[in-house]
């Protein structure tokens, strides 16, 4: 579990530091105060597949560059992911870096740095596995002046691990699959980032494969019951859309009902809990956790997140804008056996600096009881 975090040069964060992180952390703050960026930073640091996680983040943000005719090589270049936005000053210059560190419970760090040459000659086809494509990214496509985005990871006393991605000199990671950029799927591993984007059938189906017929299935059913108490069972069918492909059996009904007919909240709460039960001893990051959920469901949602997080030994970071969601968090914590599992964090932009203001469960009690603003 991360107890502390230092971020340097990633998006809004020039220098950012936060200590006293807890098991379940709710993050508030104005627009553009760095909430989503903080989730991304934690995802990158805790990811088992950092490069895929970076591409996933760029894809979810829509930070893509479309295919175009490149006059320098007189050739059509396929589209890709624009990385310049990930750096605080948004510049693509050699030596440019973003840095992520945590010291407790275990020391780990990640540095993403732009270099001219490959750090160590590794298999060129490495990059291709990211896109599951056997086409070669050759120097012609890259314009001959390619640079490398190098990922250096330290942790747990092990040797430095290095991986790299080739990028064009204007900072684009080329995706060879097609000239139009598709949404990429979530990287594998014990760190999951749920953005505010619609969660499709494929993503849920992949999660479900490892949940079905295990006790984790009950947790997901319990989650759906928060919104629809009659839900009894879930089933995935071969019809591959999340609207018609996921069927629910309701008590007292003969025919199953498609998930899609039951509102966005059902898919959202299913995605949250299905992700959480899939990251044992790992990390779940949820942007705008209350999206699609009515306020009456929020306390139950938090209760389930707290219980499941404690049981899975998984750390949770979620963001919200809503007072109802903060209050529901406090109410669920108040009834939980160990309220200290929860922490409220406000990000506050102060000129060029982002500060983190922390509230313990006790302080959150006082704030909610006395109606003191925390957002």
């Amino acid at each position, binding site marked *: 579990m991360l107890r502390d975090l230092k971020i340097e040069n990633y998006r809004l964060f020039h220098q950012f530091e936060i200590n006293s992180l807890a098991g379940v952390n709710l993050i508030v703050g*104005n627009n553009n105060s760095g909430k989503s960026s903080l989730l991304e930073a934690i995802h990158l640091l805790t990811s088992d597949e950092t490069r895929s996680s970076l591409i996933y983040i760029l894809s979810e943000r829509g930070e893509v560059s479309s295919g175009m005719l490149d006059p320098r090589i007189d050739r059509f270049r396929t589209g890709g992911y624009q990385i310049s936005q990930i750096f605080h000053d948004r510049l693509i210059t050699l030596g440019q870096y973003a840095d992520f560190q945590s010291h407790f419970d275990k020391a780990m760090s990640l540095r993403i740095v732009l270099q001219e040459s490959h750090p160590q000659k590794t298999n060129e086809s490495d990059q291709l596995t990211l896109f599951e494509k056997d086409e070669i990214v050759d120097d012609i496509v890259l314009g001959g002046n390619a640079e490398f985005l190098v990922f250096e990871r330290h942790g747990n006393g092990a040797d430095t691990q290095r991986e790299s991605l080739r990028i064009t000199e204007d900072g684009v990671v080329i995706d060879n699959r097609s000239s139009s950029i598709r949404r990429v799927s979530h990287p594998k591993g014990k760190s999951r980032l749920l953005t505010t984007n619609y969660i499709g059938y494929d993503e849920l189906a992949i999660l479900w494969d490892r949940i079905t017929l295990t006790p984790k299935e009950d947790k997901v059913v319990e989650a759906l019951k928060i919104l629809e108490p009659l839900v009894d069972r879930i089933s995935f069918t071969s019809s591959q859309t999340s609207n018609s492909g996921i069927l629910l059996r309701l008590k007292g009904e003969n025919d199953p009902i498609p998930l899609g007919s039951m509102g966005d909240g059902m898919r959202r709460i299913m995605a949250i809990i299905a992700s959480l039960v899939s990251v044992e001893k790992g990390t779940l990051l949820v942007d705008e956790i209350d999206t699609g959920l009515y306020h009456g469901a929020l306390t139950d949602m938090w209760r389930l997140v707290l219980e499941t997080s404690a049981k899975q030994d998984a750390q949770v970071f979620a963001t919200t804008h809503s*007072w109802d969601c903060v209050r529901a968090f406090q109410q669920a914590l108040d009834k939980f056996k160990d309220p200290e599992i929860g922490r409220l964090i*406000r990000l*506050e932009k*102060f000129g060029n600096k982002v500060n983190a*203001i922390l*509230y313990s469960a006790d*302080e959150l009690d*006082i*704030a909610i*009881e*006395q*109606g*003191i*603003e*925390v*957002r």
Partner: protein
Amino acid sequence: MPSRESTAQLLVEGKNDQHVIWALCKQHNVEETFTVETPNNDSGGIGSLLNSIPVRLKIPRLKALGIVLDADQNLEARWQSLRSRLEESGYNNLPISPNADGIIIYIPEKPKVGVWIMPNNRLPGILENFVAHLIPEGDELVPKVENILQDIENDSLNRYPFNKRPKAFIHTWLAWQETPGQPMGQAITAHALNHLAPIATSFVDWLRRLFGEA
């Protein structure tokens, strides 16, 4: 839900403090640059006010927090318990005892903090002692009120405990005014009480220093 976003707040113990302060500000034409907040819950009391201070000091974009509380029996003890809450929030170098004209603390990059301990930062007592100081000088009802309280106390007829005596005093006095039984705030507005009394001027001065250039 928090009622509004306020970046300058005066925190007081209860509704009576709120009304007295609003009335004084009105009489002194103090600009409405701050809100007057109470602990706003049923459990109430000085404990929940003190406990809320570290949480209030984290209010987003807060520029200044004023705290008005009663000294009660022991001004030093009250100040010490407040001091320790402020130190928790990173306010160091606080005076050993409060200044007569109210405390104002500046720490770089933190909200300005002001403290006024009723009645006058010097004596034990409560809001009602402060208001008693607004009774016009030489008022002829004061000795009469004093006598009647003495009388009933001598005969053990008083139902109030000793620490509530200032309340019994001011409300007896208010009962005998042109509009009998006006609340303290209204009595200030009606000029039955003198808003220009030195204690009131000193208090308003403190408010202006705290919130004036907040």
